[in-house]
Every structure is written in C-alpha cells, then in structure tokens.
C-alpha cells in the first residue's frame, strides 16, 4: 500500500535531528511539523522573517502581523525571534539552516529540481525556493511519485529548474531515494510496494540498497 500524505510527512520527520533549524515548504511539507519525534527540539524557520514558528492560533487570537511564508496566521514560542528579509535569506544562503523540506514537480537523477514554473501557464514566481535549495545544507523533497500517471523522477527535468544538483533525498508515496555523487539509490519501499511497480513508475535510473534486493 502506498504511503498517505501523513505517512510521508512522518517519514520526512525522521530526517530531523535534535537542535536542527528547519524550513518547511507549503503543502505536504507543512504536515511534517505534526510528527516531530518526541525528545528532540527543532526550530522552524519561516523565510518571511521568523525563527521558532508556533502552531496555528486559537480562533479569535489571530494576529495579522504574525504569518508564515504561506501567509497563514501562526503563533510565537518562547524561542521565537524576528528579523528582516535580508537577514532571513542571509541565514538561508549562508548555510545556517540545517534542512529544507519542500515539494517538487520534477526531480532528476542528478539532483536537479523543478518546482516553480510550467511554461505557457501563468507563472506565480519562485518565492524563496531558489534561495532555499541553493543555500540550505540538506534538501529533502516530499512529493507524489507520479503526476497524472506520468513519472516525476526523471533522467533530466523538462521544466525550468529551481536548482541544479541540489536534492539530497526524495520521499514519495512509494519509497525513499537518496541522491549523491553515485546517482540515485532506492533505500526504502512503502509497505507492499514492489520493486517492479516502482521501476515502472520511475523514469530516472537508480540502484538499490542491497538489503532491499
């Protein structure tokens, strides 16, 4: 059985380490905050200028001056700090953020990522995605394995890139892949997903961790 969105978020949360500073993208990555393992502390960074992002406010306690990068109302924590956009991206570009978890339209076997633009459609903009993938120490992609039946893990991205060779780990509803100098490696399969099925739904070349074979 393929992983649900919550399962994928839980798997991504296993990449968190005690003391990490983490930026979560919009969509499934946002769910990761629900699965932070007990016994560790992480600080969530919101690129509009906040570290130590708290949960959504209780009804009636929303503050228009307190939003995350998805423009959602949030709350602060005892650890919270605020800063301007230049400092926010200074900490991102400067490699001070440990982990970025974001969504993708396409990922290539060499780690190229496309997630901001489909030519011919109205383009909304890249926001902070290009800065995040270029600057954050480790980039984890959380996405559905296919889109309308078409593979999203490719030999080469066909859409305009967000970053070149930037992805370290891909978690889909079918499995988990690492990407490194030696190319793409399948390291986990979702329950009851066969190697044959994942091969059929993946265009990218990949090898398997021995234990999986």
């Amino acid at each position: 059985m393929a992983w649900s969105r919550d399962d994928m978020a839980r798997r991504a949360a296993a990449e968190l380490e005690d003391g990490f500073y983490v930026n979560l993208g919009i969509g499934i990555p946002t769910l990761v905050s629900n699965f932070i393992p007990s016994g560790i502390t992480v600080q969530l960074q919101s690129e509009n200028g906040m570290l130590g992002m708290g949960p959504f406010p209780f009804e009636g306690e929303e503050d228009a001056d307190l939003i995350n990068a998805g423009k959602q109302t949030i709350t602060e924590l005892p650890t919270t700090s605020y800063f301007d956009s230049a400092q926010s991206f200074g900490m991102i570009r400067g490699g001070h953020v440990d982990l970025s978890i974001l969504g993708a339209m396409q990922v290539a076997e060499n780690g190229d990522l496309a997630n901001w633009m489909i030519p011919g459609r109205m383009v909304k903009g890249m926001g902070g995605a290009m800065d995040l993938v270029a600057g954050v120490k480790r980039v984890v992609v959380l996405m559905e394995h296919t889109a309308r039946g078409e593979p999203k893990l490719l030999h080469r991205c066909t859409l305009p890139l967000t970053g070149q060779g930037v992805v370290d780990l891909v978690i889909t509803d079918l499995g988990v892949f690492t990407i490194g100098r030696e190319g793409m490696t399948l390291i986990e399969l979702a329950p009851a997903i066969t190697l044959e099925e994942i091969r059929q739904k993946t265009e990218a070349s990949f090898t398997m961790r021995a234990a999986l074979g």
Partner: protein
Amino acid sequence: MDKVYPDAHAALAGLLRDGMTIMSGGFGLCGIPEALISAIRDSGVGGLTVVSNNAGIDGAGLGLLLETRQIRKMISSYVGENKLFADLYLSGELELEFNPQGTLAERIRAGGAGIPAFFTKTGVGTLIAEGKETREFDGERYVMERGLLADLAIVHAWKADREGNLVYRKTARNFNPVMATAAKVTVAEAENVVGSGAIDPDHIHTPGIFVKRIVRCQPYEKRIEQRTVRKRSN
C-alpha cells in the same frame, strides 16, 4: 526639522512623478504601507516600476494601483494571489521581472549599502542566471546580481519617533527595513508616532537617518490572507 506630516497625501507631496521607481514594503498583505499606497493611487501618478515581494490581492495593497493601471512594471518574487495581475500580465499591459526572494532582499540591501553588485549561488543553472555574469569561487559557481535602488521607498512601521527611528512588529518587518535604506527618499507610515526618547535606542530597527518623512496611519483593519486556526480542546 520636523519629519512628521499630517497625512499620507502631505507626506508624499512633491515626491511623485510618472515613470519613477518605488519600493513598497510588506510580505503578502503583512506590513504593507496601505495608507501611502492609497495616497499614491489618489495622486494619479503613472508608469510606475514597483519593487515589492508580492503584488497585493484584488482590491488591497498594490492591487489598488493595478486596478488603476498606474504600474507599468513589477519586480517581485511571487505574485500568485492576484487575478487582475495575471490578466494584465497576460494581456501585455504589465511587465514583470521575477527575482528569487533572497536575491531580491539582498539586491535591495546591497543597493542601500552602496554595493553595486554581488555574487550568489541562488539561481545558478536556471533561467534567472541567463545573460548574467557567472564566476567560480572556491570551486563553486556563482551568478552576479546588481544592487537595487529606487526613487522612493514607502514602508510600514509599528512605531516611529519624531526623528524617524522605526520599530516594526513581528513578521510585519519583512522587507520594510531594507527598503528604507535603498531609496533617495523614504516615507514611513507608522501605527504610533511617539516623542523623541520614547523608544529605547537599543530597540530601534531602522535608524532615523534612512527616513525623511513620517506619517501616522489612521487605524485600519489589517487584512489576513489565510486565516488558519486550531480548535481549543475542552
């Protein structure tokens, strides 16, 4: 010299001309200089290039200046919340330059700090780097981006004193402090205008040297784009 003006129109008097470049603070609708944007709309000035992370929404923020076709070009990182924006862009009435958000912030910071260009790894190997100089430092490739300056910056602060020292509130800070440094003239609207000495000098975010004019913005309801809440457990 008194920097405090009675209203937003007075604070912008003599500063607006067709074809100028204006930086406008805010992220989404958070921390936008709403009163000054309205006054720019009322002035009728046109052909503007506006530097702002976003373009407001229909009927609010910079959306007001899109409705009246006063903006010729936007320099932004994300414009997804605005339907009119899409229509104007697709019909060719509006020019658009996308900058990665961090590159945009750093271009403004550099502009204000007298730095004409810098190298960043953001966007290397993407459409953003096309036509730009790239260079290798310590084995890694970087693309050159230019500092950005404007004729006018409009910013929103929580508190200002009469000298123009500014304090922002929570995530309404965002682009406001960097934009305040990067224009020939910066006009700040503030929710509270207080006497000199009323702000602890250690708590000032933008020193008054960057701010030429101040106006107290009348109380208004701040808009929330995505109202997200959690339930109280009983």
